[in-house]
């Protein structure tokens, strides 16, 4: 197991450097000269040339890449092209923190709706409630965020004036509710689906029948024997949803005007701010790799039968 974790940890930097290389390459392919973009209207041929030299843009591509990787290892992601030379980390960190908070709020929504509902649907298999829950959740899952977001805004903000329509004011504020719901509801649908499937699988197990046969209280069977074991496969999905939510929160951040990482990365793409973008991709990919590793390790803790190789 230790060897497995070590191997994964060794592979991670390789993967990250390949990902960074890819974005770096896209940066050189992209039209527009960063030096020219930085200088704006005042640019003259001489100025641009001097700026290119200063930014190191005239160096050959492999050299620049190696320098970049060396700097990243020292914790320096370079300076932003767009925000006049401010360090990339300084720009990204607060934005990333906003996104993380938003996604945690959304995950909480998804879990609190999804897991109990999936469990309930599985327990009611064979009645009309099960298929109606499944279909309702499928409909909600297929609902594009372009629709949920405006709908929620129109209803709760414009009509009822319960919460502000847009903006961001920290995790514990009414402004968090709508975006968290927007991301969380489709997420809940995924949880319902998987929780239902895995609960059904566990219900059929013999130890559940044994527990019931020896007269265990229903509550205990439900929670200790069924729910706890059914949660195991959900771990994987939880990790992936958390990692995947960064993509999903992009549109939501735009519609609600939340200054998160999604918004920043989108702006960076359009402003050709490749230092910001590369750093963002590196952090995102790094989180995904880390999430996968943590899930794998969590598996062995929750289910001692699993041995990693």
């Amino acid at each position, binding site marked *: 197991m230790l060897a497995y974790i070590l191997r994964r940890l060794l592979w991670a930097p390789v*993967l*990250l450097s*390949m*990902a960074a290389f*890819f*974005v770096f390459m*896209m940066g050189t*392919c*992209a*039209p527009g000269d960063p030096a020219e973009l930085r200088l704006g209207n005042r640019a003259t041929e001489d100025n641009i040339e001097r700026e290119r030299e200063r930014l190191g843009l005239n160096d050959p591509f492999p050299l620049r890449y190696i320098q970049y990787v060396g700097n990243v290892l020292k914790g320096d992601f370079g300076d932003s092209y767009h925000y006049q030379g401010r360090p990339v980390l300084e720009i990204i960190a607060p934005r990333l923190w906003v996104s993380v908070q938003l996604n945690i709020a959304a995950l909480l929504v998804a879990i609190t709706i999804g897991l109990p509902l999936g469990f309930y649907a599985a327990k009611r298999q064979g009645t009309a409630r099960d298929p109606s829950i499944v*279909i309702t959740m*499928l*409909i909600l*899952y*297929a*609902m*594009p965020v*372009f*629709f949920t*977001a*405006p709908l929620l*805004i*129109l209803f709760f903000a*414009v009509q009822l004036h319960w919460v502000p*329509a*847009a*903006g961001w004011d920290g995790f514990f504020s009414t402004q968090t509710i709508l975006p968290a719901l927007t991301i969380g509801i489709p997420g809940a649908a995924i949880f319902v689906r998987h929780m239902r499937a895995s609960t059904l699988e566990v219900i059929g197990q013999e130890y559940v029948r044994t527990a019931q046969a020896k007269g265990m209280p229903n509550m205990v069977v439900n929670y200790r024997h069924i729910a706890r074991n059914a949660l195991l496969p959900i771990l994987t999905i939880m990790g992936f949803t958390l*990692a*995947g939510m*960064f*993509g*999903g929160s*992009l*549109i939501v951040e*735009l*519609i*609600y*005007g939340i200054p998160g990482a*999604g918004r920043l*990365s*989108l702006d960076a*793409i*359009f402003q050709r701010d490749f230092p910001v*973008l590369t750093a*963002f*991709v590196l952090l*995102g*990919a790094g989180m*995904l*790799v880390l999430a996968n590793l943590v899930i794998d390790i969590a598996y062995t803790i929750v289910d001692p039968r699993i041995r990693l190789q």
Partner: protein
Amino acid sequence: MATDISTDSNFDTDNLPRARGHWRNVWRRFRKRKLAFASLIVITFIYMLGIFAPVIQTHDYHETDLYRTQQGPSAENWLGTDRAGRDLYTRVVWGIQTTVIITISTFITGSLFLGVTVGLVAGYFRGWIDAVIMRVGEVVSAFPDILLIILLAATLKPRIVQIAHDIEDNTGISGLVSSGIVDYLVIGIALLPLSWFGMMRLVRGQVLALREAEYVEAARAMGTTTPRILFRHILPNVVSPIIVSVSFGIGSIALAEVVLSFFGLGVQPPRPSLGVMIGEVTARGNTSVSVLRDHPEQLLAPIIVVWMLIFCWNIVGDALNDVLNPRAR
């Protein structure tokens, strides 16, 4: 006792149900699922709307009528008009056509052609080819999906448009850029990472198991060429999971195109796309909700189409999964 039933005098072979082919059975089982069957009909209907857009349009999709902007539904404009007085029904129908073209072409090139072939090769040959392919796939899937798609679209677009202009200048072919082919190409390339890796991994996994099967070994022993083994012996046996994966994937491809166009990176105006239409009403994420507040009904048509497509493809995918892989339940 295994007697030949046709020689058994007590057995009336004429009244036996005729043996049906595998696909006829699949189709019969699929048809019994009412919701899935209804979904398939809805999908067909929506796709037909798109394919026959030039025939069933009531206006021109870029024809503006500034005396009739932001109108509600009427006999003249079935779904009303947008802020430039363009007919919403016509634009939705053309938007569906865009979605149809992009999903189908992305699926044929990315998923079916690239994903399946690479998956077959990786699974069959294993070794370093497999390792390289899997590692590349891991790098691609390490990116947040939507972000990678947007990045590709944003950086490639100007390059490809430039190339198209060069071709136009040098060969005298005109209308290449304005025809929208370039947009489709950009979107198709940008969506590749989304479509090929999942399919590749799926096919690879199946092939890894199948290559050890006895019938494949028999084929190899008889000196069958490798491409023939791959495409005639192995591929037919992985068709079922491929179909299931395609039916689940089409919804997400359609959504990705809508997202790209929503951000202004996909189909360019005046060509309509469902994403562009949604973006115009929600003001592309600017927090101003004025159009949205005053005319939320303009969102309905494009959103419902996107919604129905994703929902129905999910239902169909579910049903196909049950019907094609009965053991997986």
